[in-house]
């Protein structure tokens, strides 16, 4: 059991931006919300999955909507708690632990916020281990814990319960309701018992956000190489293999809207005179809200669900797809996703084929070995 205090929030936000792999939304506003909630109500207690009782009621929470709307229409203070209260009312009992459904981006803060507002406990785990664009892209769905029943809440105090038998269909219908709620709705879903949570959730991801953020912040303060330090830190976690794929400058950026997604490709080229110059052809990264695949010439370097993170070379600040721009000096990192996200069942839901990519999944560590043999 650990306690999340005001001092932890900036680190968690920074780590969540890293795990967002370019998407998930900027946690800035969610962090301000959470800071107020903890300042008013005190620290939040966070259990590990192992500390949950077998019959504990766990529900996952977060928001559904568009990040571009999120920066303008901030949530009502009671909106996220109302989604949890509505689901509790429907189930006839209070939640024993709140869990993030998405550790990457702004949703990482929601269980902390709601736990602080309602005086609940949270659990250190999530369903994505990073950010993904759709609700059903969670290990909960992969391993048979259903999204239903689900509660959505607007800022008006309106709530709705959806009881939909298929998670992809639930995503489709919930998103339609979210649009009518002004593209910003709070959600509580995937109610499950503690025993199930241990089986289907990715453990330790909130504390991992905190560790990543603290590591990056410390590197800045101590003026040491942030990338080497982070690689070393991640080696001791279930995200074990991390490496710098490339260092260079954004030389091309193509972005367009396709079916509501920010789809595009960013090209990063090495620069002459660069201290940590990367050899070889430019690195091309394809994105659909999040970074999906990194390719160099004909060689695949990393692919979803492994994490591809673009960071500002100077400050090691993770950069979201919305903030990518020509001329930025960046360092690209690849991080292996935890084993629970790499099974055949998981890859069917959020592997390359789920995004229409032509390649099969190859773990980043295997791609690295290949690179060393040929490169």
């Amino acid at each position, binding site marked *: 059991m650990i306690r999340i205090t005001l001092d932890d929030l900036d680190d968690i936000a920074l780590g969540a931006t890293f795990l967002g792999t370019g998407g998930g939304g900027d946690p800035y506003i969610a962090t301000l919300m959470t800071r107020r909630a903890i300042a008013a109500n005190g620290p939040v207690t966070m259990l590990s999955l192992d500390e949950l009782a077998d019959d504990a009621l766990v529900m996952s929470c977060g928001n559904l909507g568009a990040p571009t709307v999120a920066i303008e229409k901030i949530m009502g*203070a009671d909106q996220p708690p109302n989604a949890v209260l509505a689901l509790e009312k429907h189930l006839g009992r209070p939640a024993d632990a709140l869990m993030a459904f998405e550790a990457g981006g702004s949703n990482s803060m929601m269980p902390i916020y709601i736990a602080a507002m309602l005086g609940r406990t949270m659990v250190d785990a999530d369903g994505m281990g990073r950010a993904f664009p759709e609700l059903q892209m969670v290990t909960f769905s992969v391993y048979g814990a259903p999204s239903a029943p689900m509660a959505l809440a607007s800022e008006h105090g309106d709530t709705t319960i959806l009881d939909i038998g298929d998670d992809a269909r639930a995503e489709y219908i919930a*998103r339609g309701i979210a649009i009518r709620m002004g593209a910003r709705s709070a959600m509580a879903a995937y109610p499950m018992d503690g025993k199930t949570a241990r089986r289907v959730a990715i453990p330790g991801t909130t504390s991992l956000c905190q560790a990543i953020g603290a590591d990056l912040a410390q590197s800045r303060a101590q003026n040491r190489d942030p990338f080497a330090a982070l690689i070393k830190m991640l080696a001791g976690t279930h995200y074990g293999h991390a490496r710098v794929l490339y260092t260079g400058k954004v030389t091309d950026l193509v972005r367009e809207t396709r079916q509501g997604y920010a789809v595009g490709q960013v090209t990063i080229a090495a620069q002459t005179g660069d201290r940590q110059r990367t050899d070889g052809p430019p690195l091309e990264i394809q994105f659909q809200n999040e970074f999906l695949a990194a390719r160099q010439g004909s060689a695949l370097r990393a692919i979803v669900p492994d994490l591809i993170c673009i960071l500002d070379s100077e400050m090691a600040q993770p950069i979201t797809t919305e903030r990518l721009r020509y001329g930025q*000096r960046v360092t690209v990192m690849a991080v292996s996703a935890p084993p629970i996200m790499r099974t055949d069942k998981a890859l069917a839901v959020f592997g390359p084929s789920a995004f229409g990519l032509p390649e099969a999944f190859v773990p980043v560590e295997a791609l690295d070995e290949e690179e060393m043999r040929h490169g």
Partner: protein
Amino acid sequence: MNRAAASKKPGRLRLGIDVGGTNTDAVLMDGDVVVAWHKATTGRHITDAIVAAAGAVLQQGGVAPAQIHAVMLGTTQFTNAVIERRRLNPVAVLRLAAPATTAVPPMSDWPADLAAVVGSHTYLAHGGLEFDGRPISALNEAEIGAIAREIRGLGLTAVAITSVFSPLDADMELRAEAVLRQELPDAAITLSHRIGRIGLLERENAAILNAALSGLAAQVLEAFNRAIDDLGLSAPLYISQNDGTLMTVAHAAQYPVLTFASGPTNSMRGAAVLSGLGDALVVDIGGTTTDIGLLLDGFPREAAMTVELGGVRTNFRMPDLLALGLGGGSLVRDGGASIGPDSVGFELRQRALVFGGDTLTLSDMAVAAGNMTLGDRARVARLDGVEVALARAAAMIEGALERVRPSAARLPVILVGGGAPLLHGESIGGGEIVRPSHGQVANAIGASIAMVGGECDRIFSLDDLSRAEAVTAATDEAKARAAAAGADAATIRIVEMDEIPLSYMPGNATRLRVKAVGDLAGGRT
């Protein structure tokens, strides 16, 4: 100080003035040609400094005040007031959004010292729009009226009103203003849609800062007007904005916050006009820092990230600058191997060796090398490490240029600012060095050649419009705003277009931001 052939054609001459914290510069311009220039000390009275600098160039140019067609002025007075937390007035902050946005009330992330100066009089009332233009909740005039009476009771004279999605539709902010006016007829009321973009907290912060500057704005602009009167000028006075375009004094009096960062923008625009280059890197070497930026099509590239001003997040249109702790006053140590970031700043004339002081500065090194004429060269005749120091300064600038340069293309490097002679040679980092004459007053020149602009920043639903129709609508709106701001319709062109798809939502909405600029009507010929 400097003099070229003055045009005798009436109505073509302009005065460019830059009122900085230390110096007030004036230039007399005939089109893009510098006729005369002068630097004066700003001192305590702005009016006196402007009269001294502008009076000197009129005299040097042999020009009667009546021949001046327009006066353009850039100022750092308002930026400095926020940074120094001085001369700000308290503000009543009204947000129209309830029941949305209650999770983050206004001024939640302000530094305590600034919040204390501005006061924490915040009100969150019903109103605001959804992304598609539907109201979040109806505006409640009785509620606003009660708030207005409370504001009056508190004796507050400045109000900032921010409504959710007001950049899409400003109606709610306008209606709330009308209700407030009934109780507060003389209040300085700032409407957020007039100064900011989408991004509620950043736009609201800018509106609050603007309202906090309203008292100072009245005084400063009065001082500017008095200087114009004292000089006997009958030409209209325009004030520089952060994006390199102009506004009228009446507009600046209402929106002083729009002058933020106009200094670096003016200096980059000045560099563009002096050099005749559209795409280039600009290196502006001052006394304490060197600002490095990128010109694209004659305008500074804008910062993509939010910009903090005095510790407050805003989303102003600001030039994307890299500031290096290197300037003429930078301290030199370790036999030339270490430069800055500390500087003697405005005390150069007391503390530098060439002026008989006891501090080794980069200017001393440049004078010793014969690159710069300043003070008494004999005092630095036997300095060690001259070459080392100047090579180190060049390497620092070269490294910074490498970070700003957008691609492998070798762009020319325009060198301006008082410290320009610090950098010697013909090229740097593979780019040719261009040293325009009058580069030391690029700031005032940039003010004098500023254009008039208009912007559209809206979310379009592509269910009802094709993308091409949306782009046309945004372009037309930006052009219409430029014309309304005083641009000559024949010269208006689009200089920037940015599209951000609304990710995570079907329904195909996209946010378009288009910027149009044109020459001041009846201005340049």
